[in-house]
């Protein structure tokens, strides 16, 4: 272990780490609301919402993320759209991530007993209020574990941004290796730093689950739990 080399390259590694954190955060912060509305559109009665959302999800979750990233970085300039490396990576990752997350959120909403919708509809409660007060409080606990799992996959996926010239954690580690020929040290450091980010996400998951359990009690997810 050459700690002196680690110390020498630590500032750039740390910079890469911050970029990875920023990229992950921006991608999740932008993808989540897009995914939420895609999920709602997928469930809509209106074909004009349901169809485009279905096509979007099924196309972009079927493509390799790297292809989407290369497209954003290399192909868009052909159409006169020049993005910085960070912008291109963000756009590409958001497009792919929102398609995945939409399915996780939709699964959570779909797991809510349809009787809940019947009851809210029969009472005349408006859609957005029902969503906020009745469906989401029941869907979020169901969607949370797959959502966080997906978020962890997305954080790891930001490593692909290193291939479109973003100086993220992976890019800085690889650069340090190519100069120093010490793969062990820098790969280990990069791995540990990814672990740190994803450990935080896992901690967020258990914290949120506990919070929800305290607030709502164990929320019954299906009719079986209601009809005794």
């Amino acid at each position, binding site marked *: 272990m050459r700690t002196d080399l680690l110390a020498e390259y630590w500032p750039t590694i740390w910079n890469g780490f911050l970029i990875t954190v920023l990229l992950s955060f921006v991608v999740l912060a932008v993808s989540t609301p897009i995914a939420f509305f895609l999920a709602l559109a997928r469930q809509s009665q209106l074909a004009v919402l349901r169809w485009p959302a279905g096509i979007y999800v099924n196309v972009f979750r079927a493509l390799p993320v790297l292809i989407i990233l290369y497209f954003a970085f290399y192909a868009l300039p052909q159409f006169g759209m020049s993005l910085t490396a960070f912008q291109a990576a963000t756009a590409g990752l958001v497009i792919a991530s929102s398609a995945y997350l939409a399915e996780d959120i939709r699964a959570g909403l779909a797991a809510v007993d349809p*009787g809940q919708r*019947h*009851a809210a509809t029969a009472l005349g*409660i*408006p859609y957005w209020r029902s969503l906020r007060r*009745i469906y989401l*409080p029941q869907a979020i606990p169901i969607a949370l574990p797959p959502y966080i799992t997906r978020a962890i996959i997305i954080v790891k996926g930001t490593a692909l941004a290193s291939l479109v010239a973003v100086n993220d954690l992976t890019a800085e580690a690889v650069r340090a290796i190519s100069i120093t020929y010490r793969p062990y040290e820098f790969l280990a450091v990069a791995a540990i730093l990814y672990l740190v980010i994803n450990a935080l996400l896992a901690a967020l998951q258990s914290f949120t689950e506990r919070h929800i359990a305290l607030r709502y*009690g164990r929320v019954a997810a299906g009719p079986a739990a*209601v009809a005794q």
Partner: protein
Amino acid sequence: MTSATDPNKKPVAASDDASGAGPMVAVRNLRKEFGSLVAVEDVSLDVNAGEVFAIIGASGSGKSTILKCINFLEPPTAGEIWVDGRRVGVVETGGRLRPARASELRRSRADIGMVFQSFNLFPHFTALQNVIEAPMAVRGLSRSDAIGLAKELLDRVGLGDKFDEHPRRLSGGQQQRVAIARALAMRPKVMLMDEVTSALDPELVEEVLGVMKNLARDGMTMLVVTHEMAFARDVADSVVFVDGGRVVEQGPPSEILRAPQEVRTKAFLQRILRTDG
């Protein structure tokens, strides 16, 4: 006051909310298809204000679908629904009929209470929160007014000591009584009861039927889809037997349940009385 939504061809005389001159609920030539399946065909019913109207029939006969069409939980394929002299789901503007907008449909539904077989209480809300939600969201009641109303109604269904319990802590019979209170909190003109005791353990059925009998005594108009023949016999003013999506026979319970004219009604009653003992 309802001139905009009262076309002249209206089949009911009730233009007056309180007079009870016409039926509270009128169903005209109702038809409902699910794909190629015809679930309900040419059903017409008149339910007068204050009347308890029992719909009986085998499972799959379309009786629950009739109820769901009345509040447009299932939009009818054809036919007319009238509640208190107003067309449900269709609005007349400038002499033309058009489908009701979501907000117009919500207003109609707010006047039509519905109770479900599987209770469908909101599991993350307490009994009290279940009851106050819709009056606040739809009727614009203040929280304190809604709570006052909810407590009164929960008291009335015998749950004055369960305000703060979540549904999972209540028995099926208690949950169903909360669901009845929740529907009543909207001050509905009519209550639709969809096999409300079918999911209950036998010993819990009576407490729910008791609440329904009280409602009937207080003059609530009710359409009750039920397998409880004793309830239909003792409480209903009219009974309609539905088979294959059509009305087979209709009349007072003394006729339909004791002296049915149609073969299919007789066969159904024999079957159900044998299994009920």
